């Protein structure tokens, strides 16, 4: 017989919601403890950064006004006149960049620990979809302050899409809402950034998290052969969750410090009739692709060099997505080293191209 108010509340809730089953599920879930356990935290950090993005984004929407006459002015108003507006904007931008970084780290850690293997292919696919959506968030959000850099980055970014054979040009015009970057593009990107992408992201994220819960944490290579007594685990609740929360707190504080010490600049208002400013380059997470395209000559076997580059990237990306399938077909079993070498090559390639692009 429940007596205390807390017990009465739990029993009231239990009649309407499977509290006990959830409690049992949380208490049975466990996280492997080994030298690679740190990588388990990056999924949670990415999720936390997404939550920060939603909260700070909602705050920005309270003042932001899309439109070529109002976008830049409203962001300037936020930064200059609204109390703590500069902080909210800087947190949104810093957290966006850290989120993409964290998702990249999460992806590579899953790749190198081979956590994408059967039966976790769907978690891998949805995770990559989330990374793609993150980059789409970054690309669409970058235009919204309607400054010079954003304007030209969007021009170049959408023009790259147009070189893809057959579908490129129609996709570019759909993105731009016309033949050129202008008022229609800004409103489209706003709709994309605050409605279409968040809705899609939330749906895919739900599937991703559901898969993680259904399948449990991936155990490192070789654990299958270990006797139970040699395997070390940490209970998911409360041990792992508390560590997660502590890390989230640290991440939030790091963002606050970055936002205060290095607030994001607004730049100059976009002027479609002006020349592109010197030293223009995309955000760092697009830099490796941008830099790689520069190495393709204008014509390759009579075909447009950029088009060949975009198609090559497309094929590379597809192979990356399909790694659970080609990994399984390669010889070498669980210790398959080809996957490691390919991954290492990709990491070194991305880092090198990014560094060269930054200079």
């Amino acid at each position: 017989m429940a007596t205390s108010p807390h017990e009465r509340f739990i029993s009231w809730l239990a009649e309407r919601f499977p509290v006990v089953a959830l409690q049992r599920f949380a208490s049975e879930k466990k996280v492997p403890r080994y030298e690679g356990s740190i990588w388990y935290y990056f999924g949670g950090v990415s999720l936390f950064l997404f939550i920060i993005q939603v909260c700070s984004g909602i705050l920005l929407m309270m003042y932001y006004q899309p439109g070529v006459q109002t976008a830049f002015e409203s962001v300037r108003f936020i930064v200059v006149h609204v109390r703590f507006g500069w902080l909210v904007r800087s947190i949104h931008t810093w957290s966006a960049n850290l989120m993409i970084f964290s998702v990249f780290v999460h992806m590579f850690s899953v790749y190198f620990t081979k956590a994408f293997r059967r039966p976790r292919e769907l978690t891998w696919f949805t995770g990559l979809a989330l990374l793609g959506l993150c980059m789409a968030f970054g690309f669409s959000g970058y235009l919204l302050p309607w400054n010079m850099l954003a304007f030209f980055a969007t021009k170049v970014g959408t023009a790259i899409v147009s070189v893809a054979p057959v579908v490129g040009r129609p996709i570019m015009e759909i993105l731009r809402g016309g033949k050129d970057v202008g008022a229609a593009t800004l409103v489209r990107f706003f709709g994309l950034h605050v409605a279409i992408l968040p809705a899609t992201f939330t749906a895919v994220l739900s599937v991703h998290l559901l898969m993680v819960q259904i399948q449990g944490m991936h155990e490192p290579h070789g654990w299958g052969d270990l006797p139970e007594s040699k395997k070390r685990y940490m209970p998911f609740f409360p041990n792992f969750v508390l560590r997660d929360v502590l890390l989230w707190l640290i991440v939030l504080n790091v963002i606050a410090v970055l936002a205060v010490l290095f607030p994001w600049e607004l730049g100059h208002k976009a002027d479609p009739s002006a020349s592109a400013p010197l030293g223009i380059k995309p955000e760092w997470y697009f830099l490796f692709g941008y830099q790689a395209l520069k190495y393709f000559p204008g014509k390759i076997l009579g075909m447009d060099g950029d088009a060949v580059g975009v198609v090559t990237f497309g094929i590379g990306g597809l192979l990356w997505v399909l790694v659970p399938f080609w990994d399984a077909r390669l010889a070498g079993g669980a210790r398959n080293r080809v996957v490691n070498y390919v991954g290492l090559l990709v990491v070194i390639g991305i880092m090198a191209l990014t560094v060269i692009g930054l200079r």
Partner: protein
Amino acid sequence: MMDEPMRNPTRRNFLNYLLGVSAVGWVGSVLYPVFEYFKIPPQKDDQPESVVAASFKDLKPNQGVIFKFGSSPGLLIMGQDGQLRAFSAVCTHLECTVKYRPDLQKIHCACHNGMYDLNGSNISGPPPRPLPQYRVVQRGDDVVVFRA
């Protein structure tokens, strides 16, 4: 031996207290900027002291025109006698915009059937207060309205 069970709960309570206080402090430091962020900063030119409300030659006796006074609407009336009067056009009941009714020679709010006379006094319906009145000055052809 007797001290152990006593001391541990005390230390735990103290740590819990510290944790609670820092949690409250942390939540406060997040909520305070958010709360401040929602306050609308004062904007310049929101409340100009005067405005050209209409051109004199466009006005006829027994006519009212709505004009923009900063961010809110005003009502300029030329009475049957040719006298010019100006009021805030924001109904004192629930902020609908009022209009001049030449058929009644009164100021009327359509939202809840509020009625004001030509001095801006609330005479029937729900409006609780008179409409704020403005000062009207004719400068050449311009009818200029000042905040009283």
